[in-house]
């Protein structure tokens, strides 16, 4: 509950009250699986950030399209080269950067829209809530991939920014429903009634009193959401309507080798391994976060 806690501070002067965030972080770090996941994810993020410094080659350079194409893994090219003679390792490292960025930015879009929609629907109630929820039902029954197919095929040659926007706009329905439920439950909480009695505006109540109580489910949804977007982006890129070529994303690299899966196995294996590792660590962390939040509530 918000507000100062003078009583406990007076009785136990030595122990400052720990913030919910601190509690969450501590309870996650207690599990070995989440510690490992955090380290692995940290390395992948670092790889993405440092890609320009650690990549052995330029990811877009095609040094010799005849002599250096389709080379299997070797010392000079640990992950081999692609049909355009580009170094796959460098592309995978740059792919980490692009795929993670897309995952994070698209999830921010989803969170913004989802929280706003769910909060408004839950707080306003009545017919508006009913209509908004039926629309949500409809969106939830279109598989996300199909919805994106419908959009992306209609708009060919999209930029990465537009792709991020669409990925984000197709991913808020589930979260929105959770937020609505929480807001509905909070609407009759004592501190909300108190704020109403003190004359706080609707907006103030939503932003100042309800939003802080929504942080935990939002953090869980964000962690799992990033994982989901990374997989979706890769799938769309694999189908040729995701990240525009010649940019390197994990899905794009796999797509480059998709016509010759059997001979160019290194082109699907290595970016895929990075992707699975990223998604797995995000899932582990997301679940650990959910466990710790469910235990507290």
């Amino acid at each position, binding site marked *: 509950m918000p507000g100062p806690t003078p009583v406990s501070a007076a009785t136990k002067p030595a122990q400052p009250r720990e913030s919910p965030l601190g509690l969450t972080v501590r309870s996650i770090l207690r599990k070995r699986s989440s510690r490992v996941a955090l380290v692995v994810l940290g390395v992948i993020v670092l790889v993405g950030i440092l890609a320009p410094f650690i990549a052995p080659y330029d990811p877009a350079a095609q040094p010799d399209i005849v002599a250096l194409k389709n080379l299997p893994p070797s010392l000079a090219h640990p992950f081999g080269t692609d049909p355009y003679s580009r170094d796959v390792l460098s592309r995978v490292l740059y792919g980490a950067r692009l795929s993670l960025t897309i995952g994070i930015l698209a999830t921010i879009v989803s969170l913004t829209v989802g929280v706003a929609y769910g909060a408004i629907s839950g707080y306003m109630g009545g017919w508006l809530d009913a209509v908004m929820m*039926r*629309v949500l*039902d*409809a*969106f939830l*029954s*279109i*598989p*996300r*991939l*199909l*919805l994106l*197919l*419908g*959009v992306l*095929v*209609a*708009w*060919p040659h999209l930029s990465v920014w537009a792709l991020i926007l669409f990925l984000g706009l197709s991913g808020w329905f589930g979260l929105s429903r959770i937020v609505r439920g929480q807001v509905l439950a909070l609407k009759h909480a004592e501190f909300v009634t108190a704020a109403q009695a003190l004359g706080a505006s609707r907006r103030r109540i939503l932003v100042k009193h309800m939003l802080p109580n929504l942080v935990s489910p939002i953090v869980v949804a964000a962690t799992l959401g990033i*994982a989901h977007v990374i*997989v979706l982006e*890769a*799938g769309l890129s*694999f*189908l*040729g*309507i995701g990240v525009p070529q010649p940019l390197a994303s994990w899905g794009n690299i*796999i797509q480059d080798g*998709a016509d010759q*899966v*059997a001979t160019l*196995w290194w082109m*699907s*294996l290595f970016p*895929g391994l990075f*992707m*699975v590792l990223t*998604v*797995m660590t995000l*899932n*582990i962390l997301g679940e650990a976060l959910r466990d710790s939040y469910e235990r507290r509530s």
Partner: protein
Amino acid sequence: MIRYIARRLAQAAVIVAIVATITFVLIHLAPGDPFSAVMDNPNVSEKVRETLRAQYGLDRPLPEQFLRYVNALAHGELGWSFSHDRPVREVLGTALPNTLLLMAVALIASFTLGILVALVQVARRGSIIDHTLSGITLLFFSMPDFWLAILTLLALTYWIPIFPVGGAIDPVMHEYMSLGGRLLDRLWHLALPAITLTLLATASVARYQRAALLDVLPADYIRTARLKGLTEREILRRHALRNALLPIITLIGLSFPALLTGAFFIERIFAWPGMGYAVVNAIGTRDYPLVVGGVIIGSIMVTLGSLLADLLYAWADPRLRSH
């Protein structure tokens, strides 16, 4: 009960109507129209395009177009597929049974396997077996559908050539086979796509069911059973599993979108002639009506799936049955 069914049916109808509206908005938000997308070809004269637009009613005001569109949909018309030069309804109609077959096999196999895995895990909760199985299910849960499909294709058709590379039948020999041989040929081709989809789906079923079983275990009736002297095995089988089976029905409804999405990628990679294969190929040829048709049919399948699951749940739960 009847009132519940009626309400749920009405709800599904509203959802389908809104889905139709959403797809209509999608089509009309897009730049140009189906003809500027398909016929980027300079050899097609403006006059031909105008005629086509008039033929398809694209020159009419939007509200009229919307009514025509809804009317056509209600009659099962999904437009004309440019790349197949056939109605979309026919293209998807021939492909749909293949997709349904793939999904049905994977659904049955993954729920059987998933529940079994969960039972083994809960019977030995906290053991190495439990942890290992949790790790494996998490791994498959985190795998992109298309990547696992590529891996199984690589491993079981190229490296260890057991299964055929793709398609639903042997392109040459199928015609010359006996009836039994043809059936075997079909099963042989179905095996790898079905195994891949099953692996993907099993992971989420097992994870979900393990959690459901663990939720049930602290219940009073389990304690009672334990006090009565039942073995842990009997408790799991006779008390825990029965009560944890109800959420499985919900999960069946929820698993439809994932199964369908998985089928899309798997069909593309194994050249399995289903709806996903048709729609994914339509992306390449910019056959927009076919893609939109796939979106609509896919959404209807998901809606029907969750409707069916809800009705099944109401029927199976004695607490709801009496209402």
